[in-house]
């Protein structure tokens, strides 16, 4: 079994490398298509031709883009994310703290959203067709249909402006106590939980319903098992595969898709960093962020596959 999982991981590493390379090239060409370069963007309205030429030379942007990209790729293989064009700081330093922030936020949201979604999804499946199931289903669809920025803004208005319970901004630094962490993260976590849970609830419900209708769940009931026991011990373990996949997709959103939440709560995460990178045409920064998102996505998907395999003795 172990060899199978190891084999799968090596296989995935190989295909991941291919995917990463594709992403890298795609990002490079997309960035190349963007009008202007770092020098013109930095100079903005002050971009006279000679000023642009001067700055370009000073920033070594006068070399061909492909050459710079190639050099960056080679650096990446040695674990070097390169130097930001804009402020000459190693990209790793720029990303470092923000990456920790992103992961922390994603982690806390996961902590809340996943158990919540599983509970709601499983119970809705158990009481399929009941009033409870209908309420859960309608609520999840309702929540899924509200734009993210609307949820976030409403939450700020309610909890910060009117009730003054929570801060409107979520700075990750200067937190000392657990209570403070809770306060600071409360609103982004609420917002993101709303955003990512709906899909997880739907998928969990569907996966559990699929397994509830199997002969082995019927067999468990005919052994005298209660409904709870039949669902939790017999149906659920076999629904782990699709549920893990849904969770992985939801969580991958938390890595790169939270730009709106980062903006509204002024949370310094990687998504905003990449937007900055795009707006200043900072190729090494854009590339590094894209690679991080891609790695995050691929490892989550792979992790979900491994979980599915571990949960299923037939394939391991």
């Amino acid at each position, binding site marked *: 079994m172990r060899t199978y999982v190891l084999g799968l991981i090596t296989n995935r590493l190989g295909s991941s490398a291919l995917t990463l390379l594709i992403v890298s090239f795609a990002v490079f060409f997309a960035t190349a298509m963007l009008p202007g370069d770092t020098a013109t963007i930095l100079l903005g309205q002050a971009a006279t031709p000679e000023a642009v030429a001067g700055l370009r030379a000073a920033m070594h942007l006068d070399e061909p883009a492909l050459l710079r990209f190639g050099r960056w790729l080679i650096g990446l293989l040695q674990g070097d994310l390169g130097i930001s064009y804009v402020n000459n700081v190693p990209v790793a330093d720029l990303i470092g703290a923000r990456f920790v922030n992103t992961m922390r936020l994603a982690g806390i949201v996961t902590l809340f959203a996943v158990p919540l979604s599983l509970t709601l999804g499983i119970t809705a499946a158990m009481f399929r067709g009941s009033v409870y199931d209908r309420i859960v289903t309608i609520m999840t669809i309702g929540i899924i249909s509200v*734009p993210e920025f609307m949820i976030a803004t409403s939450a700020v208005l309610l909890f910060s402006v009117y009730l003054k319970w929570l801060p409107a901004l979520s700075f990750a630094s200067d937190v000392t106590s657990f209570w403070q962490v809770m306060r600071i993260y409360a609103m982004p976590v609420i917002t993101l939980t709303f955003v990512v849970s709906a899909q997880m609830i739907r998928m969990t419900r569907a996966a559990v319903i699929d397994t509830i209708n199997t002969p082995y769940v019927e067999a468990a009931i005919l052994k005298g098992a209660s409904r709870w026991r039949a669902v939790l011990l017999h149906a659920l373990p076999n629904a782990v595969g699709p549920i893990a996949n849904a969770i992985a997709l939801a969580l991958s959103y938390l890595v790169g898709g939270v730009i709106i939440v980062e903006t509204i709560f002024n949370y310094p995460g990687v998504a905003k960093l990449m937007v900055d990178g795009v707006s200043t045409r900072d190729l090494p920064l854009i590339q590094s962020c894209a690679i991080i998102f891609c790695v995050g996505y691929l490892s989550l998907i792979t992790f979900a596959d491994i979980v599915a395999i571990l949960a299923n003795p037939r394939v391991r």
Partner: protein
Amino acid sequence: MTSSTTLPRRVSYRFSWVGMIGFAVILFWAMIALLAPHITPYPVGEIIDEDYFGPMSSKLLLGSDYLGRDMLSRIIMGARYTVGISLAAVCLACFSGAALGMAAAVIGGWFDTLLSRLLDALNSIPSKLSGLVVAAAVGSSLPVLILMLAVIYTPGAYRFARSLAVNVNTMDYITVARTRGEGIPYVVFSEILPNITGPLLADFGIRFVFVVLLLSGLSFLGLGVQPPYADWGALVHENIGGLPFGAPAVIVPSLAIASLTISVNLLIDNLPKKIRDRST
């Protein structure tokens, strides 16, 4: 409250009332979108109200927006864009995703591997960021918007269709078709497609909701249709300052989005079921 319609060839359908409500709402918005230019009470760009975020009144049925423009007219025109763009994008995404997914499942081998990796790569870049880059690179005209949304949602549709098609592909009737000597297009469209249309439609619905939401998310990043028009998401965003006052300018477009997406979901969850009743 079950209505059944009898169609020829003794095939009957059962359509629950929840699904019918969903269908009715979708139809309503579709009509609004089609008739939009003829039913707006005021020009979309004209400033009618001295005040802004005005309340509902007999003159301005849904109040005014942040510039004092008529909200009703803006929502009616917005229906055109939200429904139109989302529908076009989701059709493109689901069609290409499904076609590629089925082809990958049937053809297999390196074609499958390469395509899967390529679309994986596409999927791994956060959708809003790719939207941002594309819009910055080529601007945000309608075709670009539609194409971009379609490309963003193709990988998901591909993954889904492929996983369904892989299952169907193991069925004996596929083997029968292939040993008959049928080509890939026939197998894909005639043998596999009819068996996965149900789930594909469900996927289509969910993806439609995602597209509507991404469209409104993009408005937050400043992308969208050209002024004076705006899709509903953009309407919510440009008027979000009215939220503290409960201005209809922000509430109504939100409700419009919710009503559309919820209805699509209700419809796909309660699609008319073909009744297979042997003993009839």
